[in-house]
């Protein structure tokens, strides 16, 4: 195997994730667009969504039940005790870099905590809040 061939092979192996990399801003833009033309996401509304007690789940009344009130801090799953990495991209660069993963977790967590799926506007607001590092 030549060096060139090996390099190509390694690039192909590493390639897909690099090629499909998305940024928090890409994902924010997609949800904003889905929320309606001219929608301006609000970190302030994102913060309220995150901190509100929804009264749906006994164990998970709000997002902070697992994520803590500080989105720059690590959290802990309220049932299993597993560590959850910070939500803010500044504290955890992997956060909001896969649209598929983001959609999966919004669906699960909104259903658990709020009792319904979140709207595109709510998702955009929350991501805005996270990108701003928790400053509304």
């Amino acid at each position, binding site marked *: 195997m030549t060096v060139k061939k090996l390099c190509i092979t390694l690039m192909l192996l590493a390639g897909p994730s690099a090629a499909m990399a998305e940024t928090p801003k890409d994902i924010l833009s997609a949800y904003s667009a889905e929320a309606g033309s001219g929608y301006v996401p609000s970190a302030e509304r994102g913060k309220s969504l995150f901190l509100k007690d929804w009264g749906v789940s006994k164990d998970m009344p709000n997002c902070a039940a697992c994520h803590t009130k500080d989105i720059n801090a690590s959290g802990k*799953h309220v*049932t*299993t005790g*597993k560590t959850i990495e910070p939500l803010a991209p500044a504290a955890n660069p992997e956060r909001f870099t896969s649209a598929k993963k983001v959609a999966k977790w919004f669906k699960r967590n909104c259903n658990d905590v709020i009792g319904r799926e979140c709207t595109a506007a709510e998702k955009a607001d929350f991501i805005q809040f996270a990108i701003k590092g928790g400053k509304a």
Partner: protein
Amino acid sequence: MKRLAILILSLAGMGLAHAEGHNKMAVPDNVKWKTECGSCHIAYPPKLLTADNWRKLMGGLNKHFGANAELDAKDNQDILAFLERNAGSGERYSAASLRITDTPWFRREHREVSPNEWVHPQVKSRSNCSACHQNVARNIWSERDIRMPGGRRMGDDDDD
């Protein structure tokens, strides 16, 4: 060049060799299973439930022991196929509740754990294997690697 290729191959191989180790919990590597089933708790070895149990469990991920753990249809199918291929068989590995901790195998294996140890704050839940099994991240379940939260160690009996 050949040396580099061999080095890469052996690095990749080490992970596998290590995971295979010495016990029946060994499973073929499967990234999707490990990532998805391992995001809220460790990815429990497929052998610990029957194929029928796994089918029921994967069919109800929207209500997964109190949490929504839904996957998209493709990922669900792929993971279920992997679980079915590597599932346990027989009553020992079966529980109507679909909880591994309710199977006869689990109950027997953990019969020496005292009620106080189960409710220890560092244990919290029976699903929290790593509270006592120190090296589950490397898929090592030997009794020699057990440290109870109070510091108690198990005997050096072999796993069964």
